[in-house]
Structure formats: C-alpha cells, structure tokens
C-alpha cells in the first residue's frame, strides 16, 4: 500500500496555518525594513565546513549531513541561518560594506527532534547587524526586536536579556576542571542551585568565586542586576560583561525600550555568542518566540573579522502564542 506519511518530525502546514506564518513574516519584515535591514535569500544547503564554523560540537551532532554524489563533498542542511549570513558577508565585502544590515526568513532543520513531538524543521525570520559593535548596536537589536514583537501583536511578550560571558567568568574563577565545568553548565541550565553548590565544593579556584557560584541559578526576577553587581564585586572578570549589559539596557531605555527582564544565569544559542544575549517569551508558546545575541568571534572564523549581533523570531512559536491569545486582546490588535 502507498505510504503517504512524512519522515519523523516533519509536517505539512495547512493553508490557514501557512497563511498565519506568511502574514507574520511579512509584518516582521516591514519592521526590519523600517530599520533599514535588507532581505537576502540563501540556499538551504551549505558545505559542512561553513556550517561547522558556527557551531559547538554538541550542536554539530544535530546537523543533517550527507555526501554529494558528484563531488564527494560533505554538505549539510542548514541548522541555523546566522553562519550563512556571515559566510555571505565575508565572501562579498564589495556588495556589503560595514555596517551591513541584513534580514532573512526560511526554514532550518535539525537531525533529530529536540524532544518527542517537536518539529525538526523550524521557520525563522531574523536580522543580523554585521560590522557594528558596542552598546549602540546592542541597543539597536533590542529595539528592533521589541518593535517587531509589538507590531505583530505580541506586545505582551516579555523581553529578557543576559550575557554570554557573565556566568562563564564566575565558573572560570571558581576553577573547575573540564568535566566539572560541563556538569556545572548543565546544572546552571536547569537552575539547579544545589548541584552548583556541590560542584563549587569540589572546585579548586578562588574562594569568593566558589562561594557565589550557586547564586548564578537565582540571578533573575526583581533586583537581578543589583544582585549580579554583588557577584561582580567578588569576581572581577564578571564586571566587564555586566557593564556591557547595563550599557545596552541604558541605551535601549533611552530609545524607548524600558521593560526588560534580566537573567544572568541563562545560556542561549548554538555556542557562538560572546556578548549580550536576549529572548522574547509569550504566553501560549512552548518555547521562546525569539532569541539572539552578540557573536563577535564568528566573523573572524570566516576571514572578515568584526563585531556582529542578531536575532531570529521562531515563526511557529510566535504563531502559537498569537493563535492562543484571548479573543478580546486579539481583536484589539487586529489590523
């Protein structure tokens, strides 16, 4: 009998749902265009060499790779669009002078389901600001994301900011060996304060850093910044990341984005973030509706060094949140 089922973890989007996604992406791109981001269309296949430059080894294991029959070259279906944008930026300095503001949308694919029932193929729309660094570019990314969420009707979404190097600075100062360090990062990703305390007891580094290490799991909610400052007082290496975060928040507030949550214990992304990281969360969506961060190390790996920041909106999770809004709110923002 003819089997019409799809490979595991893939699905079709029916006309209504497809229309929601397309409409959402179109409105996001209106906002992106308003900030002078220009759209690029990129292929779904890349050489593995390009894809792996942008990923941690754990993330690389999740990439669907195969050998091209003709050339014998290993290619991958993109798990992430950011490294492709960086490849384009590095390859075409003639067409893309600094700073380059680019936006995109399209599907990305993972080799396995993140967990049972989650789709492997995810539609994203995002922006990348390449060749621009510092607080001003950080604030721009936060402002564009806030405006984009507001524009599509996710004005209730919470915007949260952290920093990729803050927790790492504390773990580094605490002096954990590689395997304890990996355990500590895993515990921190679960906000498992007790395990962090146990691991701090086995660490051999700075005493003050070991003492504050478990607090990394609690640096969210009201007063997160001031509690973070107290951590930075005893771990000097954490002060610079915190200063970068606060500078970005000050500038974003001056540009009208004042309601921002802080979590200094949140790790994000596929392993290339070096500066502020941020995400949007909305009721009704199973995971973040958007996430991004600064990745100043990645461009050099492609041969055109420079700072960069960007984010992607997950069109599926954003649509989930929009479809599950209460009817009254939905009417209010319908255009």
């Amino acid at each position, binding site marked *: 009998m003819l089997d019409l089922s799809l490979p595991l973890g893939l699905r079709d989007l029916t006309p209504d749902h497809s229309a929601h996604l397309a409409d959402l992406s179109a409105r996001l791109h209106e906002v992106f265009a308003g900030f002078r981001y220009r759209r690029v269309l990129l292929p779904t296949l890349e050489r593995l060499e390009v894809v792996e430059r942008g990923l941690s080894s754990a993330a690389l294991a999740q990439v669907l790779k195969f050998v091209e029959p003709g050339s014998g070259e290993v290619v991958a279906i993109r798990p992430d669009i950011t490294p492709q944008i960086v490849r384009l930026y590095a390859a075409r300095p003639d067409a893309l002078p600094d700073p380059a503001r680019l936006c995109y949308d399209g599907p990305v694919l993972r080799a396995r389901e993140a967990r049972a029932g989650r789709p492997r193929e995810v539609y994203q729309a995002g922006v990348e600001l390449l060749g621009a660094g510092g607080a001003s570019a950080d604030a721009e990314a936060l402002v564009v994301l806030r405006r984009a969420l507001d524009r599509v009707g996710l004005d209730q979404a919470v915007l*949260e900011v952290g920093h990729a190097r803050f927790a790492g600075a504390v773990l580094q100062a605490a002096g954990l060996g590689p395997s304890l360090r990996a355990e500590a990062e895993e515990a921190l990703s679960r906000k498992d304060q007790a395990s962090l305390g146990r691991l701090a007891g086995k660490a051999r580094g700075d005493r003050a850093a070991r003492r504050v290490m478990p607090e990394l799991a609690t640096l969210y909610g009201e007063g997160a910044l001031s509690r973070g400052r107290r951590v930075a007082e005893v771990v000097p290496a954490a002060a610079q990341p915190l200063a970068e975060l606060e500078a970005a928040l000050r500038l974003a507030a001056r540009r009208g984005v004042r309601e921002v949550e802080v979590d200094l214990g949140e790790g994000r992304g596929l392993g290339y973030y070096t500066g502020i990281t941020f995400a949007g969360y909305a009721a009704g969506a199973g995971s973040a509706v958007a996430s991004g961060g600064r990745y100043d190390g990645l461009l050099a790996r492609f041969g055109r060094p420079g700072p960069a920041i960007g984010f992607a909106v997950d069109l599926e999770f954003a649509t989930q949140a929009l479809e599950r809004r209460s009817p009254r709110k939905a009417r209010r923002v319908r255009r």
Partner: protein
Amino acid sequence: MSRVASGELLSVAIPKGRLLSEASALFERALGVSPKNLLENTRKLAADSPEHGLRFISIRAADVASYVEHGAADVGVAGLDVLREEPRDLYEPLDLGIGRCSVIVGRPRNARPLPRGVAPRVATKYVNLAARHFARKGVPAEIILLHGSIEVAPSLGLADLIVDITETGETLRANGLVVEETVLEVSARLVVNRVALKLHAERLRRLVESLRSVSEA
C-alpha cells in the same frame, strides 16, 4: 516590570500518592497553605488558593514532569528518577529533600555469578537509566521493560538482575534479592516550566525561595 498580568493564578502540579503528604507539608510550612487539605475538600482535580495566587492540581506522580514541561502546570513536584529516566526540558531549581529513595541494581541473594562474557538480562521499568548504567560500566546488558512486580522477575526466570526503586529494601529482601549497587540517589525536585519562569520571574523566584527556606535539611 513585567508586562504579564500578575492577577492570574500560577498552577502547581502536586503528585498523588507517596509524595502528597510530604510535599503538602512543605507548602504548608512555606506559605501556610496545604494543597492536600484543599484538594481533599473538593471533588475537582484542581483547588485554588487565590490569596497565594496559586492553583493546585492533583496529578499522577509519573505525569507531573509532562504537565509542567508542556505548560499545563507552571510548577510541579517530581522525583529525580522520573526526571533522569526521560530527560525533560525543565528548570529544577530546588531539591526538596523529600521522597528519598534509591534506584538500585538488585540480584538474587544466592545466585551464582554469570559465566564471564555472558550479557546479563535486566528487568526494569527504568529502561534508559538501566541502559546508561550498564553502558557506562561497559557491560552489554539486555534490558527488559516491565511495568510492575519487577522484583519477582529473577525468581520466575525472566531476568538475572533488576533495576528498581527502593526506599527501605524491604520488598527486595522479601523476594530474596540483595542490593548490588546504587544507580541513582533519588529525592523530589521542584520543577518549573521554562516559559513560565520568564513570564512570572519574580513570583516564581519568591516561591522557590520560600520553599527553599523550609526544605533545607
């Protein structure tokens, strides 16, 4: 700071059975509200405590992690055995220190050791924990999934070993089994939905802190 209305109730999944009384006592000491009493006084599956901003729902212990992971509950109480058997995308901010027990490898007291190189057959409901445990030791075990009465499997000739949970070891002894080694020390954890923690950061931080203050052993 948050854009989310603070008026809505946060839902807490309370496990039925073994953990109910102890979990309830923790909430009572931390907040002055007993989910057990609230839930016993209603015939519904949910009981509200508006003054604490909480709604307690009564869930089978093995299902709490699923409810919280998928957002049907914001917070829950779940055993570490459940959380490690099937890894979940959850925050686990607090070891509640209740429901202490162990996942162990048990073998018949008088069993002769298996000839060298023979893969043991292991009966368990923890197929992933058991497979990981024997893989780490480099032992090629054959894992057999059972849904109950694990401890009788060796005497009925189904398995050489079992991997099962035990609090006192009494059931094991009654079935002629001894503990060979411990796979996992278990206690109940407070689990929190990943998006809920972001949408209600301060309320959930305070809930975690007040439970922490009464659960620290």
